C-alpha cells in the first residue's frame, strides 16, 4: 500500500542522527553468536577436510563403515537418524497437539499449571537420565510388551520382525518423549496466540467446543504447529546420548523397526575418542558436519514457519 515516493537524498536533513555508541557496543557483543556458529562450521570443515577430499559426495550414500580398511559411508547413520526422528514425531505429534489444546484452555489454572509444569519438566530432565531409564526400563518393557506381541501377531509383516531389546523403535519412543515438550510448548503458545476473539466469535455463533477447536483454532494455529513439529524434528535429529544408549549400535540399515541401528550422533559419541589415524576421525567429524547441516536446514525452515504464524496471529488479532 505504501506507494513509493521518490525519496530524495536527504540533503535537507543532513546526517542528523547522532551515533548510538551503546548500540554499536551491544551489537558487537551480540555478533559473537553468529561468529561462533561460523567458527563451528569452519572448524568442523577443517577437521573433516581429509575425509571430504577422500570420499567426496559419495560419502553420503556409501554404507560401509570399516575403520580397519578406512572405508567409511554415512548412509546407515543418516537412515537411522532420520528413521528414529520421524518415528518420534509420528508418536509425539498427536499427543503433543492434544496436550497443547488442553493446556491452552482457560480455567482450572491449578490443574493446567501442574500439567504444564510436568510437560516442561519433561524437557528439563537431562538426556542421559532418559538414556539410563530407557536402557534399563523402557527397552526391556517395549521388547516384552510391544516388540514380541506385535511380531507374534503379525509374523508376516517384515517391518515388525525380529524384535530386539535395543533398536529403532525404542530409540524413537524415547525421542518422542524427549521432543514432546518442545512440540507441546510451542503449539500451546501458538494456540494461545490465536486471538481470543476467534474462539468467542465461534462459540457465540453456536459452535460446539470441538467445532471451535477443530475448525477455527487449529486452522489458525496450523502453520505454527507445523513449525513446532519441524523444530521438534531438529531436536530429535541432533539428540545423542539417550539414543546412543538404546539404539543398539549396529551400523546397518535395519529391515525391522525393532532391529538395532545407529544414528550419526551415536557413532560420533561412541567412536570419536577411540578414533585414530587421519581418515577415521575426519570421517566422524564429517558425519557431524552432515548432521549439523541437516539440522541447520530443518531449523531454519521451522523458524520461518513459526515466525510467519505469529505474524499472522497478530494480523488476525
Amino acid at each position: 500500500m505504501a506507494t513509493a515516493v521518490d525519496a530524495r537524498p536527504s540533503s535537507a536533513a543532513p546526517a542528523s542522527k547522532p551515533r548510538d555508541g551503546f548500540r554499536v557496543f551491544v551489537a558487537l557483543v551480540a555478533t559473537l553468536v553468529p561468529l561462533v556458529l561460523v567458527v563451528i562450521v569452519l572448524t568442523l570443515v577443517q577437521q573433516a577436510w581429509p575425509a571430504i577430499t577422500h570420499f567426496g559426495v559419495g560419502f553420503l550414500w556409501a554404507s560401509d563403515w570399516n575403520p580397519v580398511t578406512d572405508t567409511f559411508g554415512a548412509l546407515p547413520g543418516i537412515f537411522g537418524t532420520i528413521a528414529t526422528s520421524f518415528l518420534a514425531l509420528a508418536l509425539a505429534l498427536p499427543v503433543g497437539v492434544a496436550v497443547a489444546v488442553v493446556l491452552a484452555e482457560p480455567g482450572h489454572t491449578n490443574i493446567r499449571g501442574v500439567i504444564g509444569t510436568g510437560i516442561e519438566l519433561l524437557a528439563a530432565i537431562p538426556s542421559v537420565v532418559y538414556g539410563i531409564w530407557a536402557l534399563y526400563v523402557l527397552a526391556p518393557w517395549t521388547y516384552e510388551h510391544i516388540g514380541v506381541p506385535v511380531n507374534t501377531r503379525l509374523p508376516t509383516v517384515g517391518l515388525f520382525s525380529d524384535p530386539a531389546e535395543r533398536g529403532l523403535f525404542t530409540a524413537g519412543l524415547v525421542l518422542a518423549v524427549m521432543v514432546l515438550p518442545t512440540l507441546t510448548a510451542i503449539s500451546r503458545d501458538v494456540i494461545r496466540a490465536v486471538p481470543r476473539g476467534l474462539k468467542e466469535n465461534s462459540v457465540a455463533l453456536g459452535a460446539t467446543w470441538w467445532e471451535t477447536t477443530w475448525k477455527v483454532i487449529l486452522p489458525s494455529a496450523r502453520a505454527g504447529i507445523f513449525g513446532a513439529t519441524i523444530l521438534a524434528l531438529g531436536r530429535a535429529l541432533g539428540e545423542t546420548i539417550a539414543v546412543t544408549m538404546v539404539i543398539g549400535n549396529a551400523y546397518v540399515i535395519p529391515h525391522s523397526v525393532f532391529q538395532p541401528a545407529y544414528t550419526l550422533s551415536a557413532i560420533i559419541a561412541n567412536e570419536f575418542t577411540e578414533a585414530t589415524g587421519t581418515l577415521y576421525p575426519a570421517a566422524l567429524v564429517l558425519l557431524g558436519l552432515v548432521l549439523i547441516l541437516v539440522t541447520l536446514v530443518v531449523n531454519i525452515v521451522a523458524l520461518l514457519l513459526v515466525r510467519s504464524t505469529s505474524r499472522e496471529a497478530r494480523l488476525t488479532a
Partner: protein
Amino acid sequence: MSRNLRRRYASWTSLVVMYVLTVLALVPLGLVLWFTVAKGLPSVIHPQFFFNSELPPCEPKCPAVSNAGVGHAIVGTGIIVGIASLIAIPIGVLGGIFLAEYRIARWSNWVRLASDVLVGTPSIAIGLFAYAFLVVPFHHFSAYSGSVALAVLMLPIVARTTEGAVSLIPNGLRESGLALGLPRWRVSLQLILPAAAPGVITGALLAVARAAGETAPLLFTAFGAHILEWDPGMPMQALPLTVYKYALLPYKSLQAQAWGAALVLIVMVLAINLVSRYVLRRQIALAGQL
C-alpha cells in the same frame, strides 16, 4: 434438534480423548522420576556416596576402580558449568539486550537466526568443535574445553530468554524513558534491564540447568576423570559423564552408582528449573502490570 445433540455428543467425546492423551503424556515423566528415585536412592543414601573415599556396596567380582563415588563429579560439574556461565551469561545478556532493544535492526535478525540455529545445533557437534578448537591445539583434554563447549550451548539460550524478558517490557517504558531526555544506554541498562531482571535470571538459570545436564559436549572435552580434580586445565569428571559411562558398564554396582548420580543430577536440574519458573512468574506478573 437431533443434529445439535449429535454435535454436542461429538464435542464431548473429543474433549475426553484429548484429556486422556494429556494424561498419557505425563506417564513418562512419572516413570522416569519413579525409577530414578527407586533405583538411585539406595546408592544415594549410602553415607559415602558424596565422598569418593570408599567403594559402594559391591558384588564379589567388583573391578578395582578407585574413587567410585560422585563427589568429584559434582565438583567437576560445578567448576565446568561455573566457568561456562561466566563466559556465556554476560555475553548472552548483552546480546539479548541488543536483540530486544534493536529489534528492527537488520543485523539483529541475523543474530536472532544464528541464536536459534545454535540452540538447535546438535550438542555432539559442539563437542566436536570444542575438541578441535581447544583440545587439539593443547594436546590434552581439559575442563576449560568442556566449559567452552557448554558456554556455546548456553549462549543462545541466555540471549534469547533475555531478549524475551526485555521484549515483555512494554515499549512504552522505553519510549517514556527516552522522552524524558535520557540517553539510550541509561534507559536500556538502568530502566529496562532491572525491570526485566527476573526474566533474565530465569534465562540464566535455565541455561545453567541445561548445561549441567549435558553429556555429549563433554565426551571429548572434559573427558572425565577418576579422581577429584580442581585444576580446570586438566580432564575432569562431571555428573552426566558418570551416569553415561557407568550405565553402559556391565557391573551392577557401577550401574547402581549411575542411578544414584542420575538422581542427584535430576534433583539438581529440577530444583533449578522450579526456581526459575517461580522467578519467571514474577516477571510475567510484573510485565502485565506495566
